[in-house]
C-alpha cells in the first residue's frame, strides 16, 4: 500500500482524473447520475403535454363545445406531473451526489493530510503552509461542486440531447434536422470557447494571481504587528495592494475573453426556432395535409425552447470545469511528491546504540552540505551531546535519526539496522523527541501530553506530567488537565510549554531520546524545573542531546563537536578541554558570555 503510491501507473489528468476522484463513492454517484438523467428526460414532458393540449383544442376548432375537456385537463396534469417529477428526481439526484461529494471531500482531505505527514519534512520547509492550506481549504473544496452539481448535470446534459434528438427526429425528421443544426451550432461555439489556447493561458495566470493574492494576505496579516511597530504599514500594504490590483488585472481580461462566446451561445440557444422557420416554409408550401403540417410545426415551436434550459446547464458545467481542473492539478502535484520510501521487508532494531557511518546530507536546493562524512557512535544508555556553532549541523543530526530526511550518503544505524530498513511507524515508536520549537495543539493539556502515546491511561499521563514538573502548574489552571491550550486567558510560559513537551516524551517512554535543550533558557524562572524534567526523561535511555549551552552537557558521556557540517572533535568534556581545540575555544567564550550585563556603559558591558 505504502509502496503503491510511489509507483502508481501513469497518473490520470483532466476530466478523467476528476471522474476517478468521483468514483470513490460509486453507488451514490451512479444513482445520482441516473436520477439526474431521468429528471432531464422528465423536463420534456410538460412541453409535449402542452403540445397535445394545443392539438386537442385545435382539433375542436371552431366549436369548442365539442372539446374533450377531460382529455385536455388530463394533459394539463401530465404537464404538471412532468414538472413535479423533474424537480423531485433532480432533488433526489442532488441529495445522492452531495452525499457522495462530501464523503469524497472528506476522504480526499484526510488522504491529503496523511500524505503531507508521509513526505519528508524538508518538503514542508520548502513549500510553506499557506499554499498547502489553500489546496485543502479551496482547491479540494471545489471538487464538491464538480461531484455534487456538475457531474449529474453533465450526464443529464449528455442524456437529454440524445432523448431530445430522438424526439426531434421521430416526429418529423426535416424539422428535427433543422433544430439539430441549431443545437450543433451552439455546441460548436462552446467547443471553440473552451478549445481556445488563449483562455487556457489566461486561466493559468488568473489562478497564479489568485494564489499570489492569498499569499500576500497571509503575509500581510502575519506581519502586521511588526510593520505597525516600525510604522511601515504602508510598505506591506503596498504589496497587498499590488497583489490585489494584479488579480483584478488578470481576472477581468480572463472573464472578458469569454464575452463573445457566452453571448453568442446565449443567443443561439434562445433562437433555435429561427432554424425551424425556413424549414417550415419550405415544407409548408408543398404540403398536402396542411393541418398535420401546422400541428408538427407548432410542436417544434413549443418543444424547441425546452432545449435552452438543458443547454444552459451544459454551459455552466463547462465553465466551472476548468477552474476545478486547475485545483485538482495543484492537489495532484503535491500528492505526486514521493513519500518517504518504506522498506519492502522491514527489520527491527537489536539494541539501541546509534551509529553514524560516513553520513553526508544536503537540504534540497542548497549547494552546501549540511553534514559531510560524519561518523560517530552513540552508545546505548549513554548521553551523547552534539555541540558546535549554529549552522554547524547539530539540528540536522537530530532530524536524520527519525528520518525526517534521508541521508544523501552513508548510513545511520540503530541497533545495527539502517533506519531506512525500518518502518517509519516502528522507528517513531522507538524514538522520543523534545524539539527546540515546542508546538502545542489547541487541545486539552491531557490530549497534548497523550500525543506521545495514544494508549496511555489518564493516570499515566498525569504521572508523566508530574515527572516533567507540569503537575503543579496544570493543577492551578481553571480546568486543570482539561484546560484547552489557546483559550482566552490561558497563557503558558515558554518553560511551561517546554515541560509539557517533555511530559509528552516521558509518556511515550521510548528507549531512544533525541532532545534539544535550547529554549530552557528562554524562561529562567522555570529553569530548575525543566532541568528536573530532563533528568526524569533521560533516565536509562540512549540520549542524543543537541546542546547549545556547553555547561549543560559537560558531564555527558561523549561530546561530539560539529562545525560546518564536519565532525571535528569527540570525547568527554575533560578530554576535549585538554586537547585545546575548538571545544576549548567554545568553552572559553561561553564562560565569558555568562557574565554579560546590560548597563549604561553599553558596549563595555563585558565584566
Amino acid at each position, binding site marked *: 500500500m505504502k509502496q503503491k503510491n510511489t509507483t502508481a501507473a501513469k497518473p490520470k489528468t483532466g476530466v478523467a482524473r476528476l471522474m476517478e476522484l468521483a468514483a470513490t463513492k460509486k453507488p451514490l454517484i451512479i444513482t445520482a447520475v441516473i436520477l439526474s438523467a431521468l429528471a432531464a428526460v422528465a423536463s420534456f414532458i*410538460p412541453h409535449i403535454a402542452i403540445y397535445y393540449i*394545443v392539438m386537442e*383544442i385545435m382539433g375542436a376548432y371552431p366549436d369548442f363545445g365539442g372539446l374533450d375537456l377531460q382529455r385536455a385537463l388530463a*394533459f394539463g396534469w401530465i*404537464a*404538471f406531473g412532468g*414538472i413535479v417529477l423533474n*424537480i423531485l428526481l433532480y*432533488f433526489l439526484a*442532488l*441529495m445522492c451526489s*452531495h452525499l457522495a461529494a462530501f464523503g469524497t*471531500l472528506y476522504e480526499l482531505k484526510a488522504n491529503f*493530510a496523511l500524505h503531507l*505527514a*508521509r513526505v519528508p519534512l524538508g518538503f514542508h520547509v520548502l513549500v510553506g*503552509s499557506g499554499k498547502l492550506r489553500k489546496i485543502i481549504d479551496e482547491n479540494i473544496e471545489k471538487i464538491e461542486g464538480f461531484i455534487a452539481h456538475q457531474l449529474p448535470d453533465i450526464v443529464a446534459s449528455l442524456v437529454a440531447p440524445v432523448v431530445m434528438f430522438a424526439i426531434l427526429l421521430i416526429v418529423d425528421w426535416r424539422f428535427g434536422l433543422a433544430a439539430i443544426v441549431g443545437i450543433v451550432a451552439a455546441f460548436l461555439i462552446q467547443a471553440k470557447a473552451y478549445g481556445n489556447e488563449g483562455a487556457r493561458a489566461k486561466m493559468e495566470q488568473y489562478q497564479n494571481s489568485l494564489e499570489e493574492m*492569498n499569499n500576500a*494576505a497571509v*503575509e500581510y*496579516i502575519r506581519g502586521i504587528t511588526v*510593520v505597525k511597530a516600525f*510604522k511601515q504599514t504602508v*510598505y506591506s500594504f503596498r504589496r497587498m*495592494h499590488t497583489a*490585489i490590483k494584479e488579480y*483584478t488585472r488578470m481576472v477581468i481580461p480572463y472573464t*472578458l475573453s469569454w464575452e463573445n462566446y457566452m*453571448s453568442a451561445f*446565449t*443567443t443561439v440557444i*434562445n*433562437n433555435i426556432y429561427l432554424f425551424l*422557420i425556413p424549414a417550415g416554409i419550405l415544407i409548408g408550401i408543398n404540403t398536402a395535409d396542411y393541418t398535420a403540417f401546422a400541428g408538427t*410545426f407548432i410542436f417544434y415551436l*413549443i418543444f424547441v*425552447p425546452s432545449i435552452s434550459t438543458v443547454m444552459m446547464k451544459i454551459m455552466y458545467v463547462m465553465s466551472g470545469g476548468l477552474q476545478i481542473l486547475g485545483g485538482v492539478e495543484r492537489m495532484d502535484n503535491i500528492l505526486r511528491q514521493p513519500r518517504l520510501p518504506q522498506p519492502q521487508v522491514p527489520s527491527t532494531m537489536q539494541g539501541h546504540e546509534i551509529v553514524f557511518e560516513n553520513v553526508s546530507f544536503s537540504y534540497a536546493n542548497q549547494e552546501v552540505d549540511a553534514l559531510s562524512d560524519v561518523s560517530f557512535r552513540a552508545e546505548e544508555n549513554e548521553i551523547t*551531546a552534539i555541540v558546535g*556553532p*549554529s549552522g554547524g549541523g547539530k539540528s540536522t543530526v537530530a532530524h536524520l535519526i527519525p528520518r525526517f530526511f534521508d541521508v544523501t550518503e552513508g548510513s545511520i544505524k540503530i541497533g545495527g539496522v539502517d533506519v531506512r530498513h525500518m518502518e517509519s511507524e516502528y522507528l*517513531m515508536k522507538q524514538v522520543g523527541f523534545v*524539539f527546540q520549537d515546542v*508546538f502545542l*495543539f*489547541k487541545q486539552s493539556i491531557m490530549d497534548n501530553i497523550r500525543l506521545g502515546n495514544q494508549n496511555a491511561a489518564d493516570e499515566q499521563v498525569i504521572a508523566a506530567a508530574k515527572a516533567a514538573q507540569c503537575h503543579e502548574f496544570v493543577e492551578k489552571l481553571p480546568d486543570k488537565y482539561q484546560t484547552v491550550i489557546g483559550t482566552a*486567558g490561558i497563557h503558558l510560559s515558554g518553560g511551561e510549554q517546554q515541560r509539557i513537551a517533555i511530559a509528552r516524551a516521558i509518556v511515550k517512554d521510548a528507549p531512544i531520546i533525541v532532545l534539544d535543550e535550547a529554549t530552557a*533558557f528562554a*524562561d*529562567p*524562572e*522555570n529553569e530548575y524545573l525543566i*532541568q528536573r524534567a530532563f533528568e526524569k526523561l*533521560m533516565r*536509562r535511555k540512549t540520549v542524543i542531546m543537541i546542546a547549545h549551552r556547553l555547561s549543560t*552537557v559537560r558531564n*555527558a*558521556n561523549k561530546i561530539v563537536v560539529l562545525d560546518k557540517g564536519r565532525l571535528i572533535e569527540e570525547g568527554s568534556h575533560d578530554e576535549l578541554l585538554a586537547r585545546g581545540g575548538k571545544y576549548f575555544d567554545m568553552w572559553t567564550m561561553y564562560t565569558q558570555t555568562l557574565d554579560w550585563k*546590560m548597563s*549604561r556603559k*553599553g558596549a563595555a558591558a563585558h565584566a
Partner: protein
Amino acid sequence: MHKLKEILMLTDKGYSDLKKAIAACTLTNLSLMLPFIVTIQIFAELLKPLMGREISWTYMWIYLAGGIVSAILVFIASKNDYKKTYVTSYMEAEHTRISISEHIRKLPMSFFNSKDLSELTTNIMADCSTTEHVLSHVVPQLSANAISITIICALLAIFDWRLALSIFCTAPLALLIILGSKKYQNRLNEKYVEVKLKAADQVQEYLDGIKVIKACGLEGSRFSALDRALRLMKKMAVKMELGTGIFVTGAQMILQAGVGLTVFVGTHLLTGGRIELIPLLMFFVIVVRIYGPIVVEFTLLPELFYHRTATKRMRTLTTTPVMDGDTEKQLTSWNIDFENVSFSYNADNPQGNMAIKNLTVSIPQDAITALVGPSGCGKSTISRLIARFWDVNEGCVRIGGVDVKTLDPEHLMSYMSFVFQDVILFDDTVYNNIRIGDMEATEEQVMEAAKAACCHEFVENLPDGYQTMLGENAGALSGGERQRISIARALLKKAPIVLLDEATAFLDPENEVQIQQAISKLIEGKTVIVIAHRLRTVAGADKIIVLDEGELVEEGDHEALIRNKGLYEKLYRIQQETKGWSVAAS
C-alpha cells in the same frame, strides 16, 4: 433599494455601476422575450387557414427576418450585460479587498492578539470572493429577474387577468415558504460556516505542527482533532444541503402547480367562449417557460442571505474602532510614568483578571530599567501599554508628560524600537527586511546597521547576500540570525526608547556574544526598558522594577533589592543555583 447598497457594503461608484449592471441584465431578460413574441406571430399565421383565412408565406419570411434582428439584439444585450456585471463585480471586490486591508492596518495591536490569523485571512479572501460572486451572479440577475417578471406579469394581465392570475397565484405561496424557512436556513448556514472555519483552523494547526505529528506517528486521520473537524464538516454540509434543498424543492413544486391551474382555467374559459384561441395558446406556451426565472430567483435569494453572513463578518472588522490621536505632537523627553494604571486583556470583564493592578511607577529617561518578576507578573504587559498596543482601563501612561492615549499609535511607535522574541520576517530580501526599520535609509546605512547588529557576516554567506529572498517565515535562518536582523531593524530606526525582551539574547546560545554586542550597540544612550528573565544580566540596570501578579512589589537597584531580602533576592538566589546544571551521565 438604498438598503441594498448598505447590505452589500458598496461604494457610491459600485452602487451606480451595479444599477447599470442590473439595467443591462434586465435588458437581456426582456430581449429574450423577443423570440417568444416572434413565435406567437408565427403561431397566429399558421392557424389562419384553420380559421378560414389564407396563410401568407411572405409574412413568414418577414417573421424570420424579424427573428434574426431580434437574435442580434439578444446578442448585443447579453454582451453588454456580461461586460457590465463582471467588470463591476471585480472592480467592487477589488475595492472591498483594498479597503478592508487598509482598515486592518489601522486597527489597534490588541486586535491582532485576540483574533485568529486564519480567521482574519478567511475574512478578507473568502468574503471578498463571495462579494465577487454575489455581485456578478446573484444581485444583477436577482434584480433583473424581479423587474422583468413584474413587467411580463403586467403585460400578461393586460391580455387576460384571469389566466395571468392563475399563472402567478402560486408564486406568493412559494415565496412564503422560502422566506419562512430563511431563519432556519440561516441558522444551518451559520453553523456550517462555523464548522468550516474550525476545520480550516485544524488544517492550519496540522500543518504547523507537522513535525510533532510525524514524531508522534499521528499522520492523517490518526490525528483525531483534524479527523473530527473534517467529519463534522461533512456531516454539517449534508445537513445544510438537505435542510435548504427541501424547502427550495417544495417551493418549486408549489410554484409550478400553476401549470395545471392555468390549463384548467384556460380550457374552461375557452369552452365558455370567454377567451380567444390565440391568446390562450400564448398563455399555454408561456406557462411552461415562465417559471424558469422565478425558480432562479428562489435559488439566488438564499445566496443573498448567505452573503449577509459574510458582510456581517466584514462589518465587525470595519466597525472595530481604530485607535487614533495626534499625529503631529512631538515628544521631547522620554521619562515614562505610570499613574494608577489598571489593565485587563479581557475587555468584557476587566475586573475578572487584571494583568496590571493600580500600578504607579516611573521609568527614568536615558537609563536602563529592568522589569522583573515571575512569568505572568505583568512585565510584558507594561511594555505593551507603553507602546499603546492596548489602552489602559484606568489611570494613565505618560511619556515626557504626554498621555500616550492622545497620540496616534503609529506616531507613538516612531519613538520606539522593539526587540522581542517572536521575530517576524517577510518573504522579501534580507536587505528589505532590515530596511523596514527606516525606509528612507541609504544602502550604506542599512549595511552599517547590519554590521553593528552582527548580521553582516552571515548575510554575506547567504547565496545572494543581502538580496537573498527569505521565503515564508525565513525558515532557513537560525533563531539568533533572525534576532540579529530584528536588532538591525531597530538600530536603523534610531528611536530614543528601546523596549527589549532580554530572553532574546539567549535564543541562539552559540552566537550569544554577537547578540550581546548587538544589543549593547542598540541601547547606547537610549531610554531602555528591559523585560528581564535572567537576573544576572540586568543586575547592572539603573533601576529594577519587581512585579508580581500585576502589582508593584519592590523597586530600586540591584544592591538595594538584594539588601531588601524580598522577592528579587529570592529569585536571584534560585537562578544562581541552576546556573551550573549539567546532565548527569548514568
